[in-house]
């Protein structure tokens, strides 16, 4: 049973729609602050930096996955939804972070990854064993195609067929991402209920909401229809993108899953549900929901994806704001763990304009840790590549390590991030760091801080 109790540590300003006036700050724990010298950021490290977050003035932290994981995909391959990965810390550390953030008046949003688990998850281990075990139908299983190959032409986003053979069952399972990330079967009510349980586990510990990963792909076509080839695809198209994902992405039935997730959340008060959605502005309205609510904030990357000139921005912003249904609330995201750093696209001078645009436009702003100092793409030597996407689909500039490099707090070798060897290289641009920009009144960081303060004052 869920509790309807509010966390005793709820921040003071606990109005229902607090997220309308908050700035949300995405933190990949692994790249934020290391406390134990293993080169990977962790929860105790985050705890040390809460004063900085308070100084900056953000209203909420969105923490990327900290759950137990073999870490094949930045923690998005989860082996246990209700635990903390030992590299990130312990549940006790987590509780301390929640309390400290709430004491600082900052809310905490966790990443919810309902589309798939790690192949190390107990559910999948059981599902694999036979066709008739209690979890047999918890994943997307299908018979081989006519020639003994995969059931259809669906591809993994990370390259190759989306189907992997399981000898024990003599069937294929579907994975939208890595073969070690089998997709859950959201047509199965038991799966929904199980994910609902994991949500309640964290909500009961005081978290203020979730960012739903890959919410557009939760359901795949039940007829398993082939995806058509993209007629515009050529040699420059990354192989996973030569098909149009008509039957794997943004299926109408996926909306019911989101409604279910929202239903779980709405048993609590003042919680936020935001989510990664299909990118087309024309589809935004569906993700907000009509008769039944879906996401409070379907994340909007339009500012990142538009050509950086006034006329394109104007058209995009107008189209987006118009697509947001009446009574719903817009949002503007300028970075994320899957997106190239915006500063590398538009340059440092225009970053100041972007800051002003993002903080003065109607809608909740989302920052990715480091955007506030204009962090740029960090060059990653081939032998330091961590991202499976880059390893599997080489040469298309798809790797995400350059934007995931650790945050630079100062100008030392290890940037104040760790006393060990950082898991990804630090930015070579030592002067672009938080301490230096805190001292410089005219820095981008101080511009952000002032704008955030102004936004708070004139909400």
């Amino acid at each position, binding site marked *: 049973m869920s509790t309807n109790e509010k966390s005793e540590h709820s921040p003071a300003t606990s109005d229902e729609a607090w997220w309308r006036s908050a700035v949300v700050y995405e933190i990949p724990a692994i790249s934020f602050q290391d406390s134990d010298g293993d080169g990977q950021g962790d929860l105790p490290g985050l705890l040390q930096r809460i004063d900085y977050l308070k100084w900056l003035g953000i209203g909420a932290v969105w923490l990327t996955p900290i759950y137990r994981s073999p870490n094949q995909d930045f923690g998005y391959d989860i082996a246990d939804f209700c635990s903390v990965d030992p590299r990130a810390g312990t549940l006790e550390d987590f509780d301390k972070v929640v309390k400290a953030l709430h004491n600082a008046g900052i809310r905490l949003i966790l990443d919810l990854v309902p589309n798939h688990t790690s192949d190390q998850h107990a559910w999948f281990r059981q599902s694999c064993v036979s066709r008739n075990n209690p979890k047999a139908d918890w994943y997307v299983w299908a018979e081989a195609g006519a020639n003994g190959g995969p059931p259809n032409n669906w591809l993994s986003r990370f390259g190759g067929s989306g189907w992997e053979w399981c000898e024990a069952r003599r069937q294929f399972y579907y994975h939208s991402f890595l073969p070690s990330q089998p997709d859950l079967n959201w047509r199965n009510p038991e799966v929904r209920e199980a994910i609902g349980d994991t949500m309640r586990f964290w909500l009961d510990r005081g978290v203020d909401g979730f960012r739903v990963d890959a919410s557009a792909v939760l359901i795949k076509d039940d007829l398993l*229809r082939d995806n058509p*080839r993209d007629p515009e695809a050529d040699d420059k198209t990354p192989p996973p993108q030569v098909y*149009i994902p*008509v*039957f794997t992405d943004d299926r*109408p039935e996926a909306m019911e899953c989101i409604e279910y997730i929202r239903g779980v959340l709405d048993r609590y008060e003042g919680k936020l549900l935001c989510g990664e959605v299909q990118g087309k502005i024309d589809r935004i309205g569906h993700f907000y929901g009509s008769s039944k609510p879906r996401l409070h904030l379907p994340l909007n990357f339009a500012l990142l994806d538009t050509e950086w000139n006034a006329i394109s921005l104007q*058209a995009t912003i*107008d189209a987006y704001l118009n697509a947001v249904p009446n009574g719903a609330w817009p949002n503007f995201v300028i970075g994320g763990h899957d997106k190239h750093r915006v500063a590398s696209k538009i340059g440092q001078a225009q970053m100041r304009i972007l800051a002003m645009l993002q903080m003065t436009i109607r809608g909740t702003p989302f920052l990715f840790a480091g955007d506030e100092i204009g962090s740029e793409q960090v060059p990653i030597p081939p032998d330091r590549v961590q991202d499976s996407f880059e390893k599997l689909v080489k040469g298309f500039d798809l790797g995400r390590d350059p934007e995931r490099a650790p945050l630079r707090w100062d100008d030392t070798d290890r940037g104040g991030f760790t006393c060990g060897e950082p898991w990804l290289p630090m930015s070579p641009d030592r002067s672009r760091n938080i301490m230096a920009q805190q001292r410089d009144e005219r820095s981008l960081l101080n511009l952000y801080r002032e704008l955030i303060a102004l936004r708070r004052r004139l909400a």
Partner: protein
Amino acid sequence: MHLSRAFVRKAKWLTAMTGTRPWWESAVIYQVYPRSFQDSDGNGVGDLNGITERLPYFVELGVDAIWISPVFRSPMMDFGYDISDYIDIDPVFGNMADFDRLVAKSHAHGIRVILDFVPNHSSDQHPWFIESRSSRASLKRDWYIWGDPAPAGGPPNNWLSEFGGSAWEFDEASGQYYYHAFLKSQPDLNWRNPEVVEAMRDVLRFWMRKGVDGFRVDVIWHLIKDAALRDNPPNPNYQRGKPPNEALIPLYTTDLPEVHDVIAILCRTVDEFSNRLLIGEIYLPVERLIAYYGRDLGGVHLPFNFALLGVRWDAKCIQALIAEYEGALPKGGWPNWVLGNHDRPRIASRVGKGQAAVAAMLLLTLRGTPTIYYGDELGMRQVDIPGDRVRDPFERNVPGIGVGRDGCRTPMQWDASENAGFSKVDPWLPMAGDWRSDNVANLREDATSIWNLHHRLLRLRKKVPALSIGSYRPRFVDEDLLVYFRELDDTTLLLVLNLTSQAQILSFEPAIRGKVLVSTGADRDGERVADSITLRGDEGLVIEL
């Protein structure tokens, strides 16, 4: 409430459903452009009695319903899409008795009649607008969209007319502007006004009581405009030489969320009568198009799917668009396909004569209700209209960039007699150059003609339900071929269409056992198919497995 009951025709076929399916799911619709179909009274312009004369033609060809472009009273500034009386027939087309006879005889021939409903705007000669314009205090002032001049003078905002220039026209007498999405003689009605909605519902009921079987709703995605009259943003992708209205993105003038509320009302009105079809004219990308099926399918029955009108004509593009459309359909939403209409260049000119036959086979074998544009069954081509014979206001307002629509509206080519049997006098638009050879009488005699291909495919559709209501399953192949199956119960049909003019070979592994039912060249019927098949250039085959 069933106002309809007393008025519903008694004819059995009309109320009969195909099982539990609405009639339009297995029907083929034929668009008649009435000015150009058949002139019965010798004025060079087609009319209702002309259509009535030609009813046996529809039966012979094998279509089930005709959609007739507007025949209502109109000053004809936009050839009937500017209506001055929604419930009267324009004298150029005949009178109400002619209309009643057309409906009665159509039904007697088993042909349903669909009218064009033009709710977005009326003519400026409509009594509603005359009254609305008369003063700011007029009771009908709010039936149209009036705006005050901008603070610095000039129109209320930057909205542009589809036919060029500002969409706002100043009315000296009352000191306000009115909005017109099209010609200034076509003021837009205010669909936010419930009185307008009620008046238009009565128009629908009027025609349904006369027995019409449905409506095609003109520019339905335009009905509602932004209440705050916000400026449309400039289009960053606009290029010179494109129609001038495309310089702005029509964000606040079309496809507003509230439009679905008024469409739901229209749909409920049509559903007051049984078996009536509502089609919406909608030019939007597929993600937005499908919204017009409405929440819980409470929108139009068929949002016209124009995807084939603009697609690059190769197998991969067409394959992708079919999959995207099929994939986007809401549960229970019935698909439909269109290859041509009175606003777009003729298919035979767009893809060439050889591919026109392949296109016809595609249209008549895809899953979904097909609409055939008159003359496409003859392979009629886009006609070059000499400058002094241009009639289309779009071409006159925005000349020289190819927006004119006269070229796809030239008279129907019936036979080799004077003016192709269309009229005893010089027609309102010039005839196509090929009318002496490419006419119904000639093509009917030529077994290999595109007319006979239509004829055979339409017969096959009637005989084999898999072609109309069967499932659609594509098979993606590397060759430039479109390959798909249509299946229903024990019937499986395989469609193989060669989208190129070169011969191509398709292999089957494992081999199939099939027999050709229809070939575009009419010379392979009955041929057995096993492990491979060679298609000539521009050839398409319907194969029964």
